[in-house]
């Protein structure tokens, strides 16, 4: 996994492109596999003028020693390549990121910051993308290469910038390389399915969470609650006894959770605007009059509805959360819940610390971001 002259050439190309763009104030759209083009605001104002920067060919694993529980790879490395490599060593990414297409890259999955079914699981093997970030090498908006964090598990030297890049949607800079913490695959897993309504499902999930049941994922929709148990044999056996319901076969379970993660279950095959509503898991029902699919113990509620954005967002806010228009934007609706003026100006100043000219992915997160 050494650095080859070709890697250096690829890196030099990226640096040159940013230098040139910065000199001309040329907006850049960072895009490799393009599997998450749908996410965030359309590049509306800048579509015509933005030039594409493609980190896809800056690819390859840099370091992987299974006993260190860390992998360091270039941003363009295919996500499936990383998952295959670590699976062979009995390890996995604890945030179970969705691919949303065959072209998904390591860098894209971190920049999007989307976590899959395991996001709200119990124990150390679950969490958000940011929870597993250890280090990042990035290219800022003036063409400088900066290196944050490292490869060790605990590191409080300097601000924790590598976590900040998770979910930054390419608005801070070009992620070049990243080190993420890996987790061992569970000794065993079992998936249970039981019939129950939405309110009851959340009550059960909350009770089981408090009782340390080894849940690594949950999915409720259409009156059915599906729970994945992961861990030691004893933990999973205990979980089966408590959760009950019917068991899915190993093959069925694999297909099911993959479909939830990749949003290929029927629920997502709708053309209505799809909202990703994030609320405290114990919040009451959204009650927007549309079917929902709920993950993360009830903390993530997907709903497809033609209701105005203001209505959906007001309801989410009333429940202590926020709503993102995830897919099928009818046009003109801001994808993300707008921030308060103070937060917005603070964010702008932090962005300017990395990209003072505002050349990266302008408008992708906040439609009014200056370029």
């Amino acid at each position: 996994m050494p650095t080859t002259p070709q890697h250096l050439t690829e890196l030099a190309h990226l640096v040159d492109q940013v230098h040139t763009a910065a000199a001309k104030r040329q907006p850049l759209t960072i895009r490799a596999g393009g599997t998450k083009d749908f996410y965030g605001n359309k590049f509306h104002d800048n579509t015509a003028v933005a030039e594409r920067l493609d980190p896809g060919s800056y690819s390859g694993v840099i370091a992987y020693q299974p006993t260190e529980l860390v992998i360091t790879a270039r941003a363009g490395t295919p996500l499936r390549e990383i998952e295959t490599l670590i699976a062979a060593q009995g390890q996995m990414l604890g945030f179970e990121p969705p691919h949303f297409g065959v072209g998904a890259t390591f860098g894209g999955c971190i920049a999007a910051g989307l976590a899959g079914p395991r996001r709200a699981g119990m124990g150390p093997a679950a969490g958000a993308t940011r929870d597993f970030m250890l280090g990042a090498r990035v290219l800022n908006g003036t063409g400088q290469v900066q290196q944050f964090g490292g490869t060790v598990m605990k590191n409080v030297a300097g601000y924790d910038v590598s976590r900040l890049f998770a979910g930054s949607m390419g608005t801070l800079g070009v992620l070049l390389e990243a080190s993420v913490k890996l987790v061992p695959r569970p000794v065993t897993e079992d998936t249970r399915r039981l019939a129950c309504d939405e309110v009851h499902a959340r009550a059960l999930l909350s009770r089981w969470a408090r009782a340390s049941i080894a849940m690594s994922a949950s999915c409720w929709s259409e009156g059915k609650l599906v729970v994945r148990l992961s861990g030691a044999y004893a933990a999973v056996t205990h979980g089966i006894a408590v959760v009950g319901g019917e068991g899915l076969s190993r093959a069925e379970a694999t297909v099911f959770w993959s479909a939830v993660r990749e949003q290929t279950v029927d629920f997502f095959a709708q053309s209505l605007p799809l909202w990703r509503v994030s609320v405290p898991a114990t919040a009451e029902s959204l009650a927007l009059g549309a079917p929902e699919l709920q993950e993360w113990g009830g903390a993530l509620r997907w709903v497809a509805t033609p209701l105005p954005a203001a209505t959906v967002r007001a309801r989410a806010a009333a429940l202590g959360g926020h709503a993102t228009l995830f897919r099928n934007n009818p046009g003109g609706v801001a994808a993300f819940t707008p921030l308060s003026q103070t937060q917005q100006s603070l964010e702008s100043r932090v962005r300017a610390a990395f990209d003072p000219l505002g050349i990266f992915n302008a408008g992708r997160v906040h439609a009014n971001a200056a370029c």
Partner: protein
Amino acid sequence: MQPVLEGGGAIDLPLQQRVVAALRAYLPADAVLFEAEQTRPYECDGLTLYRQLPMIVALPATEADVREILRIASALGVPVVPRGAGTGLSGGALPHAAGILLSLAKLNRVLALDPEARTARVEPGVRNLAISQAAEPFGLYYAPDPSSQVACTIGGNVAENSGGVHCLKYGLTVNNVLAVRGYTVLGEPVEFGSAALDGPGLDLLSLIVGSEGTLIVVTEVLVRLVPKPVLARCIMASFAAVDAAGDAVAAVIAAGIIPAGLEMMDQAATRMVEPFVKAGYDLEAAAILLCESDGTVDEVAEEIERMSAVLRAHGATRLAVSANEAERLRFWAGRKNAFPAAGRVSPDYYCMDGTIPRHQLGRVLSAIRDMELKYNLRCPNVFHAGDGNLHPLILFDANDADSVARADAFGVEILELSIAVGGTVTGEHGVGVEKINQLCLQFDEVTRAAFINIRLAFDPTQRLNPGKAIPTLHRCAEYGRAHVHHGAVAFPELERF
């Protein structure tokens, strides 16, 4: 080699009078301290090597007080240094001679505890252990457990991104805090994170945690609580060589086990603590590992068996599994009391905090043994082996200038070695004033410039805890000149990423 401190020196008495008057117009007299006998207890934190009397100590009792103090400080252009319990080990709460030391100790209320949602909303002055005590009736606790958890506050934990012996499994502060609210240096209210997951915009909470009080003053923290395991048991494993113990650590991880705690103590450390705590450590072993499992009864039995098998296969000469809770706590008592024990066998000790890749453990420990001879100082080692976080304790005598100089040089050499093997100078204690020079070695100039720009984004006045956490470019330039033995670039041969 100790950093020249920013914010040191004598107190400007006319300025002090002006600021006291302005603060007393808002706060009661007993919440504004300025006489030396009153401010003396605040002259240092847990890193007693550095001391400075603050110009003023302000003791707000409410969030509104904090806001008002910040506004007054802004109007008068005075630096502000936030402080929790003062247990920090890197001088992060060292006062500023021309500044206000903002003690958040009185903001110590648990505001809300939601057992259903498994969260607690607390003020920054609430002690770490007090959160777990408040959660206990609901079968919950707050997972990060720094050794100082009896005294240290959650505000300080947020500032330092504190860990603890159980963070291998349960994560650091950053993984257990859902949201914070507070004020910018100008007294503007801000909130980061929320009870709902993965909010819109940048994850600025990740910057706030571990920012050592340089970005905002935190006035409220929403923490995640976790269910208390039914049972915990701990294996004490003896090894005939330190390297063998290091290999066993790697083997446990390779076997796919994440123990609740995985700690190592070398022989010098076990012999140092045993007389005080009577933990029952194997004093003949070159090193011992403490390897803990928690969960349900069956789960723990299964994991203890797996861990025992791995440890035995990797050279453990003796295994003892805690038979009951009293014995488990005794195993840990030695580890958790290593710092106080060092204080009893030596007039002074200096605790290092480098973190290294696990596979470098043997190399680094052997280098530290050579340094003991080189500097003629003893250095027992206790560390969070599971995550490669070393705590070498350099024993010295602060009344002997030569001993201090040797301890200092010893510490610097350990930190530089940590960087050289691909690690970091601080895993959990923070940079503070103590390691500010080493940051010049760990990060290149363009990366340090980003840190400075982030700081300016939050605090354009640079009055919030100045001189801590992030070195100025000027400081690094000076340090680079003084630090000639490595030339302009530290360890250029190493590809650190």
